[in-house]
């Protein structure tokens, strides 16, 4: 049984191994090698390739831009979703289900539905090709899922905690800030991981809503390297792909622990189970 899983794990990694091996070669070397599996002559070529990739097609600027978008938009989405979830579950708001569905419906439409009108909207309002525009969109698209998770999580926080705090004189917002939010650090960490990864890996919207270096995120920049008019060989393109993949993997290695322990989401039932 363990052996089976072991084999599976190795098989899982094979494609990635291929990417790394190729990114360690130079272009002429790649085309002259007998097979894709041949080991590179100089593994340190990887750093040269990554450095070249950084300066080509706006990869470096895209890296920084995606970092900005991932952190800010994920953070804002979690914040706004938490506020909304709090109101829908714990405050006396009319039609809580309606507000929930209204925001959640943002996740139901296939992304292509947003594409063209957003493109038009952005062009007309001057949001096109701006960092503000990108942040606004990424926040909006991250909101529905964050609301879904936070709502489910808040619903499982025992009412007694809230009542106790209220007796102590806490205002609604105080309860939110001092009790609800801190208790929710696990789903927040999970959401941050998911949303940051999604934003980082987004191709479609980064492609359509931005274009210049510094605004355009990293994944569209990577796509640009693949194009027909590009003269970069596979080693450079795959080195760029590695560069593009690095942060999400690092984030996963750091936050993965929290995610795997605390991902109770909604229906599993209990808050903060360990």
């Amino acid at each position, binding site marked *: 049984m363990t052996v089976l899983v072991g084999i599976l794990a190795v098989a899982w990694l094979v494609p990635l191994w291929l990417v790394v091996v190729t990114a360690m070669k130079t*272009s*002429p070397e*790649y*085309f*002259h090698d007998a097979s894709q599996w041949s080991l590179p002559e100089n593994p340190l070529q990887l750093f040269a390739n990554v450095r070249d990739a950084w300066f*080509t*097609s*706006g990869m470096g600027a895209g890296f920084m831009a995606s970092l*900005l978008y991932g952190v*800010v938009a994920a953070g*804002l989405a979690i*914040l706004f979703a938490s506020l909304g979830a709090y109101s829908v579950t714990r405050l006396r708001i009319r039609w809580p289900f309606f507000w929930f569905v209204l925001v959640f419906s943002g996740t139901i439409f296939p992304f292509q539905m947003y594409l*063209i009108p957003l*493109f*038009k909207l952005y*062009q007309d309002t*001057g949001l096109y090709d*701006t*960092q*503000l525009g990108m*942040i606004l969109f990424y926040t909006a698209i991250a909101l529905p899922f964050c609301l879904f998770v936070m709502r489910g999580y808040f619903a499982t926080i025992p009412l007694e905690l809230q009542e106790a705090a209220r007796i102590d004189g806490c*205002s*609604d*917002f105080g309860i939110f*800030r001092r009790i609800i939010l801190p208790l929710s650090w696990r789903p927040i960490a999970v959401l941050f991981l998911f949303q940051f990864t999604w934003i980082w890996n987004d191709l479609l919207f980064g*492609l*359509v809503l931005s*274009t*210049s*270096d*510094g*605004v*355009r995120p990293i994944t*569209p*920049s990577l*796509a*640009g*390297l*693949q*194009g*027909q*008019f*590009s*003269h*970069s*060989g*596979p080693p450079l*393109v795959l080195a760029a792909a590695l560069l593009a993949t690095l942060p999400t993997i690092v984030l996963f290695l750091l936050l993965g622990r929290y995610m795997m322990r605390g991902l109770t989401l909604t229906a599993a039932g209990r808050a903060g189970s360990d």
Partner: protein
Amino acid sequence: METLTRRTALKLGGAAIIAGAIPPWLLEACTSGGGTPSGASALQLSNDKVTWKAWFEQEGAASKSAGGSSWKLNEYADTSTYQAAIRTSGGSSKVPDLYTWWSGWLMKEIVDAGYAADVSSLWDKESSAYDKGLRDLFTFNGKTYGAPLYFGPWVTLYNKQVFDKYQLQPPKNWNDMQHVLQTLKSKGVTPLGATIDGRWPAFIYFETLLVATDPDLYTKLMAGKAKYTDPGVVEAMNLWGQLINAGYFTDPSSVTFGTGSSTFLTEFSQGRAAMLQIGSWYEPTITGAGMKPGVDFGGFIFPNAKSGIQNSIIIESGPLVVAANGPHKSDAINSLGWFMSKAGQEAWIKATAFTSARSDVASPSPIDQQLLADMKAGGYQQINRYWEATPHDIVETAIDEFAKFMLHPGDPMPILQNIQKKADSVWATIK
């Protein structure tokens, strides 16, 4: 109201963070009412050729030192997005001063909508240096609307070492060609590269073989004055089918010649595939794989499959267009005029190593030099490639049908009928 104050503070703080990220020029645009910086007018040049950035920059600098305007670049990473951006902004003042586009029928929409400025006067001035066939690519109703950004005659590139190994010469006629094909095949080398990856390459051998058997029919077909089901077209398709069945092509479902995961280059550089029919703009890609032009690989014009027809060669060229509604139209036209001039083209060809479109500017690649000389000596007429030569809706249907044929060669009639059906409906809306 402690509650409201705290939340408001949070929101203000958040807004401050976001505001810090707004690029300064946007703020300027909001406050000063937008517009370009005053003083020397830098022309905005939009394009979708991300990896040409350095070349554009060099050319813009050269333009400036020649006394003209400099170029400010706006690169789009994705072709579809780029096209959507130009299409939707072309009529407004947000359009760039200059932009790259595609020739022929892909340009017609832009011209009909009034998005491109008439630059016939520039061509008239330089008429001796450019081939008329090239000008036709950008001409509509007698007026010309763009300058050639790049020029790519379609050439058969071949691996010289493989040819030398089997004592083969570049073929001058169809008999030679068949000899080359058969010899290579018998020695275990795949003669011609073919792919369906990327969708568009499926038309390559269709146009090549049709032009090699009946170029007049090709021209008529592109203009809707002939049908895909005409005997001449069927004959070309049958020829194609014969070649496929004889095993002269690489497996189109496996081979790619893009750059991300190009497999053709590996096959080509290691001598397992010998030739590729492609635009001359592909040469730098092969050079990038470690083969030297003229030494390791060469080029020849695909020989006619029938005798007695007009020598014809497929060419490809994309225009640099001046936006009709651009903010600095006259400056842009002047800049384009400089670009078309000998000085402008010398700087451009030097930077890009493309094939030169001007007869008085030499092409750096020995293959291109030979190619242009052969074209001149043989009196070759230049014909636009399929992608731009006929309405694009027909092309989109056709490349899918050609892909089907490449994967399952057989009776071409059903495929040709499908394409003709689409062609009929498209031409009906145009006429």
